């Protein structure tokens, strides 16, 4: 991105956040209550399914569900960012990266707010706090980069093929329900196909970056970090190369 596009991206993202809350007295509060309510209902339902104490299950669930929702939001909002930015890309020589990156910044700020909710809830639910929680800012990085990378890939593809939205949504849904976010991996026996699938699922390792420090009170393993950062770097590279390669074509599809 050139200097003008970087400057615009930052100012535009700030304005989007400002506008979101400017005219709504309860705007900021809703941003905290909405994920709180969602997490509350889910923890009640799934604690029954998983036969766990609700407080214990809620800590397990929230620890990976909050970063997942952030990742999902980045991918889905980035997807139509270039198409919806036609008012700009057809009039000024702005880098096409500016629009998905703006959505990513806005979603990242909202993720920060959501985590405030989680900490408030954890203050009630969690009995023991360990030093491992200090690693959480680092744990958020691969989630964020993976979301941006896939968001860029989806933004480029959606510009050319408007019918990929349901494909992406189904893919995300599949990834969510097959990853150990709602359920614990030890629900399945050691040699089952489900256990093997979990071991090969990249989200397993990303989820562990939050579940281990928050729920288990341990450090994420080297494998967790390696897989998470590896997948995030690969998706970011793919997204960057795809948007850069297609940038001259976007105008003709907007």
């Amino acid at each position: 991105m050139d200097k003008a596009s970087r400057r615009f991206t930052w100012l535009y993202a700030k304005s989007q956040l400002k506008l979101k809350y400017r005219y709504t007295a309860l705007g900021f509060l809703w941003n905290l209550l909405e994920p709180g309510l969602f997490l509350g209902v889910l923890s009640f339902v799934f604690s029954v399914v998983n036969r766990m104490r609700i407080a214990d299950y809620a800590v397990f669930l929230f620890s990976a569900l909050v970063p997942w929702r952030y990742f999902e939001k980045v991918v889905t909002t980035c997807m139509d960012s270039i198409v919806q930015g036609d008012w700009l890309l057809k009039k000024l020589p702005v880098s096409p990266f500016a629009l998905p990156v703006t959505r990513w910044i806005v979603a990242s700020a909202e993720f920060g707010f959501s985590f405030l909710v989680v900490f408030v809830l954890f203050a009630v639910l969690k009995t023991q706090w360990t030093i491992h929680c200090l690693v959480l800012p680092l744990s958020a990085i691969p989630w964020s980069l993976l979301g941006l990378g896939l968001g860029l890939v989806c933004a480029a593809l959606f510009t050319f093929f408007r019918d990929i939205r349901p494909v992406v949504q189904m893919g995300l849904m599949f990834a969510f329900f097959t990853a150990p976010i709602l359920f614990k991996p030890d629900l399945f026996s050691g040699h089952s196909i489900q256990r093997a699938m979990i071991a090969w699922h990249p989200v397993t390792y990303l989820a562990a970056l939050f579940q281990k420090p928050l729920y288990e009170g341990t450090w994420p393993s080297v494998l967790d970090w390696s897989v998470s950062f590896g997948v995030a770097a690969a998706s970011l590279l793919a997204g960057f190369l795809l948007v850069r390669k297609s940038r001259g074509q976007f105008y003709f599809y907007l």
Partner: protein
Amino acid sequence: MSTLNGGGDVFRLEGVSVSFRRNAIEERSLKHALAALVKDRGPSLYRALQDVTLTVRRGEHVGVIGRNGAGKSTLLRVLARVITPQEGRVYVDRSCHVVPLLELGIGFQADLSGVENAHIAGALMGYSYADIDSKMEAIVDFAELDGFIHEPVKNYSSGMYARLAFALATDVEPEVLLVDEVFGVGDEFFMEKCVERMRRLMSGGTTTVFVSHNLDFLVGQCDRLIWLDEGRVVSDGPAPVVAKAYRAARGTS
């Protein structure tokens, strides 16, 4: 897109062609792309610019004329680096600060104030927050928005909106200005103000490329006219000569 190193040229186009697909919305789908692949069916194309070769030198004032659909706006978008042509080469002197004024108020957000919008739109034109801050008083003066600049622009009249956008683009004195028919906005008084501001910029050395249907205005302001028809350059030369030929061809001389 390549860079011109020094010399007096700001833009140089060599054999530039731009084609648009005549595609309907449903053709922008994975389903259609796969079907086209199977049936080996290429897209139907419309050539907006065909083999255009021209140069714009530093300090020149160039007008682009032609009928609707002749390729004038496409040419301006190629110069502004908004469109990447499928064929030919575009050389741009990157040391020049180019401000495209293809539409007034690009980047304005209805719920943001005039000041906030000025910073966002200013960033799009390549100006820093400090640049815009230092010019804010002059911008407000020109746009006659004293007392309204902190109001959301959705409360502005169309004239106020246009004045702010035009003041923003021109008060910072760009080195190259690309203008696409933006003087049709606002009242007569505002138009006069805009033309006066443009004259001042042009006499101050700003390179300008105008797209307009107002031939008298172009002949009065430009050294040179480029006449486009069906995407091709029909004539490129001194403004009075090209204007005379254009009028003769249209039977309006």
